[in-house]
């Protein structure tokens, strides 16, 4: 029985004269891998930004796990359990891989200023726990050996993994990935697919933007299609693939 995790309806977002999101509605169930596709400029990243609090929608409703997240700040969204990665990798480039992931633990730790200054046992225990968890996550995504390296020196594929590890550090219920496979070769894409399945099997729901149609078809439980800010289709991959409106929107993008 599918349990509803995230539900948005009537979402509008305008930038001056540009109506970037037009009456968008979708729902994501717990344990799904939910895909979001559409031509460039359709509004996918804009929707992402709305769902993660970076943009404030003009109208609509947004409920997540029983919490109202409409127009809430990014840190509230993260605390409620949504984490994300970025289309063009926004790591903290001059920090090490381990430090990047440790930053991800920020919202799940409680040490106050006083605690930081006094370094009482409770604070020190928390610091150690942060480090341990960060190390675990690096291993989870497969980049343990790069723990002490500066983030900008990692290979492209490893940087993407690091970003995922950092997002996982926030203990999310929903992980939103913005084109995680961009620029990857087929082997790397396959590894990424397995990682995402592992994450889902470990209890994290995944929302995914991707252009690699084959990847999406093989990975996602359900897919929504955006075009010019509107949702034009939603359903299981087979249905979406054969939807005439979707085909028309992509103008001949042939699924291999």
């Amino acid at each position, binding site marked *: 029985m599918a349990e509803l995790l995230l539900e948005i309806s009537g979402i509008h977002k305008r*930038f*001056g004269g540009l109506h970037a999101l037009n009456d968008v509605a979708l729902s994501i169930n717990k344990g799904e891998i939910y895909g979001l596709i559409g031509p460039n400029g359709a509004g996918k*990243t804009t929707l992402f*930004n709305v769902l993660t609090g*970076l*943009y404030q929608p003009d109208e609509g409703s947004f409920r997540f796990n029983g919490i109202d997240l409409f127009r809430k700040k990014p840190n509230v969204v993260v605390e409620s359990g949504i984490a994300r990665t*970025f289309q063009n990798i926004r790591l903290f480039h001059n920090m090490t891989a381990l430090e990047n992931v440790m930053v991800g633990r920020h919202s799940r730790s409680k040490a106050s200023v006083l605690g930081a200054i006094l370094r009482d046992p409770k604070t020190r225990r928390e610091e150690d726990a942060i480090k341990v968890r960060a190390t675990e996550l690096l291993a989870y995504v497969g980049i343990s050996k790069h723990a002490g390296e500066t983030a900008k020196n990692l290979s492209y594929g490893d940087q993407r993994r690091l970003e995922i590890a950092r997002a996982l550090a926030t203990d999310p219920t929903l992980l939103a990935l913005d084109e995680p496979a961009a620029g990857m070769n087929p082997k790397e894409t396959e590894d990424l697919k397995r990682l995402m399945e592992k994450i889902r099997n470990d209890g994290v729901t995944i929302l995914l933007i991707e252009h690699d149609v084959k990847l999406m078809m093989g990975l996602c439980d359900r897919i929504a299609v955006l075009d010019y800010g509107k949702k034009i289709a939603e359903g299981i991959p087979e249905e979406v693939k054969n939807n005439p409106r979707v085909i028309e929107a992509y103008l001949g993008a042939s699924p291999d």
Partner: protein
Amino acid sequence: MDVLIQQLLNGLVVGSIYALIALGYTMVYGILQIINFAHGEIVMMGAMVTISAINVLNASGVHLPGPLMVIAGLLISMPVTMLIGFLIERIAYRPLRKAPRLAPLITAIGISILLQQIAVLIWKNNPRSFPNVLSQEPHNFLGASITDLQIAIVILALLIMGGLLFMVEKTKLGRAMRAVSMNQAVAGLMGVNINYVISMTFVIGSGLGAVAGVMVGANYGLAYPTMGFMIGLKAFTAAVLGGIGNLAGAVAGGILLGIIENVGAGYLGPLTGGVLGSQYQDIFAFLVLILVLVLRPSGLLGERVAERA
């Protein structure tokens, strides 16, 4: 009511000067997205060099009628300020074009102090009186008084601003400036000589600054090496108020700020029951600046720009 009209007129005069200086800030900001902190000192240099030039001319026996003396002075001070502006861009800003944005700001502060101290070295820290340019005899206008000089300032400022707006809209250089301010990389690809355009922006702004400096000196009757900071800050506030990067905004902001300052100072005493007097006049500029940046950063005429994630 008489007080109000007088303050409005005073505000218009001072505001026109602010507007002229604000144009310098806004042009540089439009093109490079940096605050040319040193612009206030350029204005000061314009005033000081003009005074010195006029004194030298007088000492060597050349006596011309007021306005011509000033023009003669400007013929010397404008090239000086233009050169300084050019050098500042070349030496301090150009190498930092790719640096984090705080770097040129810190450098600008350093240059501002440098220019100020050089001026103190040359002219000592004493105020120099500005020679009489035009008759200071007040005319009566709607119950308030305004002098020939003040009228001349307003008219000249408006003419210059009009000329600048014309240049930016209709000439090749102006088009190039607008292109560079919108998208530097693409403008370069379209064949615009970016370095030349940027240099010219500084040169023109500095030239205007010299004229503004003369106006300040003439309006207040004196000039001194440390006058650049306050007037620069106020003009920058005006530019922000009108919408930084927007030329018409600089004009509007300048005049508006001048009026706010003067009307405000005039009524501040009575309004606060004597607690705050007109000695707090300078505060208006700062308050306007903070309020605008916090409440409506794009200013009156600016565009609202959201940062894309």
